[in-house]
């Protein structure tokens, strides 16, 4: 139980409250591995459902906020302020025909959306929501998060390749080159908090920020945060780095040929990934669930959503980059800066904290 929380236990940590109660109730009837297993499955299922609902809220928020920034109204017909618009969209997509184009590599075409979706949802099991609150807390947390994130490249390339459409293939190729290029600044800037905390566990990284958030460590914190955010936007293919689906050049890129529910899965994965970038950026640089008065999971959610709002802001502010500019930025600007940031952080750790050994 966090000491900073003054509210009743049920509000501060409802998951531990309910989970502990359930575990006790199940434990009295079943042998030990089973209650833990059942609760893990229940926790993951609940988390996945929450993420799906969050994605719907993200779609609505993004459309409304972008509309506001562009002086439009945005969706306002379905439900109060158009809040049910994403539900209507989902129902519509659920009832649309699932078209597989002639000449497509059928098996790969059908499986590609799942390859993109599964890691984007599984990554949420690693995000810490509070002290000891999270589905899994493993020693190599951040490494596994980045590893799961890299699966997106594979799925999108598969989709582009299997579509038997030249625009889709162009989108797939672009995305492969873009994602592997931005993977390096992403990994190197994520290493700055690891270096500072001396652990790869996401809980450990949050705990290490009790004194000062990583973003406030001058001079490297803000630089690493901006690099991580930039590379993160590129990794989830959002504007201004959405060259993979640049509708003015290549129709819709890799998902040109997808329709109905399979397109919806790509869409779901994209937004789940955007929110994951927000969550991981908060864990690494913004102190994760740390914060006064409110319960930890609320802080985590607020910070992750805040970063997502920055993503929307960036999208409606900046025009799309040209592809050569995109690659030049990754290799000639982001990579040297991230390497320099890493070395300076190492020197800072030596100077300020000394060595334990």
């Amino acid at each position, binding site marked *: 139980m966090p000491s900073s929380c003054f509210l009743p236990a049920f509000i501060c940590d409802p998951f531990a409250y309910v989970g502990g109660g359930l575990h006790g109730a199940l434990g009295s009837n079943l042998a030990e591995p089973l209650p833990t297993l059942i609760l893990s499955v229940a926790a993951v299922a609940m988390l996945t459902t929450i993420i799906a609902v969050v994605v719907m809220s993200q779609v609505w928020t993004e459309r409304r906020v972008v509309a506001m920034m562009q002086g439009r109204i945005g969706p306002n017909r379905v439900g109060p302020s158009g809040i049910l618009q994403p539900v209507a969209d989902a129902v519509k997509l659920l009832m649309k025909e699932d078209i597989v184009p002639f000449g497509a590599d059928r098996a790969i075409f059908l499986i590609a959306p799942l390859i993109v979706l599964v890691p984007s949802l599984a990554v949420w099991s690693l995000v810490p929501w509070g002290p000891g609150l999270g589905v899994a807390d493993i020693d190599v947390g951040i490494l596994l998060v980045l590893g799961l994130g890299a699966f997106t490249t594979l799925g999108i390339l598969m989709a582009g390749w299997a579509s038997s*459409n*030249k625009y889709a293939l162009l989108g797939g190729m672009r995305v492969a080159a873009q994602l592997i290029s931005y993977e390096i600044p992403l990994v190197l800037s994520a290493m700055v908090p690891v270096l500072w905390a*001396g652990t790869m566990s996401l809980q450990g990284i949050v705990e290490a920020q009790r004194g000062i958030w990583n973003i406030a460590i001058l001079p490297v914190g803000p630089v690493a945060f901006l690099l991580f955010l930039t590379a993160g936007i590129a990794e989830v293919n959002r504007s201004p780095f959405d060259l993979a689906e640049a509708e003015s050049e290549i129709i819709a890129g890799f998902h040109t040929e997808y329709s109905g529910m399979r397109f919806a899965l790509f869409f779901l994965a994209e937004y789940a990934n955007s929110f994951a970038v927000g969550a991981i950026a908060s864990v690494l640089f913004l102190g994760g669930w740390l914060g006064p008065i409110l319960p930890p999971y609320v802080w985590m959610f607020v910070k992750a959503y805040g970063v997502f709002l920055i993503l929307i802001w960036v999208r409606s502010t900046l025009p799309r980059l040209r592809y*050569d500019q995109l690659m030049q930025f990754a290799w000639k600007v982001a990579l040297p800066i991230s390497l320099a940031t890493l*070395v300076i952080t190492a020197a800072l750790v030596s100077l300020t904290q000394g060595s334990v050994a």
Partner: protein
Amino acid sequence: MVGSFGPIVIAIAIATAFGLLPLFLSGLIIPKMPDRVKNAPYECGVETIGPTSIQFHTRYYLYALLFVIFDVEAVFLFPWAVAYRHLGLFALTEVVIFIGLLLVGYVYAWRKGALQWV
């Protein structure tokens, strides 16, 4: 299934089910009317010319090679970052030499124009 990686295996299984379920449900109700024109590749209404399985341009391979170098570097750096405080100044010297060696290759690639998108 117990152990710290167990929940991640469960998460992957449930995420797969979460993707398959709506596909199955929509498969029950959606219309299935394939059509010669509808199922043709959509390339702005112009009929497709030539094979789609074209070869990747060489420039993609250059980036892929560079990516492998720097990603392997990142894999080496992660354990270094975790153990850094226990290794002291020795670790700093080591990593400066390590990154320095990579920078030589990086500058070479830059001078050769491998980072130039042509």
